[in-house]
């Protein structure tokens, strides 16, 4: 016969299976409820903890919602001007090649204003990691159209939906940089379900590990939600993301060990 176990019996140090990593600070994140940024931050922090590289890691924050990322990760960080994070990271990594260096950028930062810096850092094969959060919208400035906004998708600057004839096509920059000789590992992930979180974390780990090989740039795109910008509840937004974002931005590895997986 099993005896009744109370919550008090379970909530003990020896039974702990999951706790927030100490690489995250105690600051409460400013993100909207359900925003994928928080999960992505936490996964990066967990990988840093697991690899024991907190003293060796330097992160570069973008301009956008995650501009204040340095408030949440307990590592040395630099805040870049809009779109310029890969330029900062290039210098940081070249001056300190034994350190682990990453940028964390949104779609506006990485795929619009910072396109040149992104493509050239990738093409030069700089040995750092880019974390690219793609939610198809400018979150911080209030929901304007991004380079990754889907066709027909509404935003405050495409209020009738993105008319590709007038506003141009969404840019699949991840597929684009995967084709460059300087990228070594390119993958697209998501963080809205436990399964996806586990996969995304594995990808983040692989990206950091590949810095040790000095074979080129690793880029992890995380397709994420923007509840406020999409004007939905967090759960609805995740559903909308699965139904609309994933068909256009399919999840999975795009380039492994310097080789494109799906040559069209």
């Amino acid at each position, binding site marked *: 016969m*099993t*005896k009744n*176990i109370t*919550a008090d*019996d*379970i*909530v*003990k140090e020896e*039974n*702990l*299976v*999951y*706790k*927030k*990593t100490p690489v*995250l600070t105690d600051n*409460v*994140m400013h*993100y*909207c*409820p*359900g*925003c*994928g*940024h*928080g*999960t992505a931050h*936490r996964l990066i922090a967990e990988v840093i903890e697991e690899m024991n590289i907190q003293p060796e890691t330097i992160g570069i924050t973008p301009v956008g919602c995650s501009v204040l990322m340095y408030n949440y990760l307990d590592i040395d960080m630099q805040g870049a001007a809009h779109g310029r994070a890969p330029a900062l990271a290039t210098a940081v990594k070249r001056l300190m090649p034994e350190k682990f260096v990453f940028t964390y950028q949104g779609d506006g930062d990485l795929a619009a204003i910072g396109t040149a810096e992104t493509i050239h850092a990738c093409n030069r094969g700089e040995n750092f990691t880019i974390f690219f959060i793609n939610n198809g919208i400018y979150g911080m400035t209030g929901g304007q159209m991004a380079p990754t906004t889907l066709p027909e998708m509404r935003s405050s600057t495409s209020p009738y939906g993105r008319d590709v004839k007038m506003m141009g096509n969404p840019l699949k920059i991840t597929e684009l940089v995967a084709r460059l000789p300087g990228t070594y590992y390119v993958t697209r992930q998501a*963080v*809205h*379900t*436990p399964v996806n*979180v*586990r996969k995304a974390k594995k990808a983040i780990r692989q990206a950091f590990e590949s810095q040790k090989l000095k074979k080129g740039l690793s880029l992890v795109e995380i397709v994420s939600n923007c*509840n406020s910008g999409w004007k939905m*509840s*967090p*759960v609805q937004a*995740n559903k909308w993301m699965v139904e609309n974002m994933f068909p256009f931005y399919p999840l999975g590895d795009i380039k492994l060990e310097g080789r494109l997986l799906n040559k069209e």
Partner: protein
Amino acid sequence: MAKVKGSIIVDRENCKGCEVCVVACPTDVIRLAREVNGKGYHFAYMENPDACIGCANCAIVCPDGVITVYKKKKV
């Protein structure tokens, strides 16, 4: 009956009530409270604590890292 039993502690004051954990829970343990925390959010709590298996799915999808998970094997 599951062979393990779990429990979660939610940092109520820092929970933003996004409900992502509610959807992620495989055993339907979590609900959002009727009452709100200091920031006005309906925080997550264990509505069916006996069903918790300590899988940590709720914690790993929590964007704010407010869930701590414990698990114990049944004797």
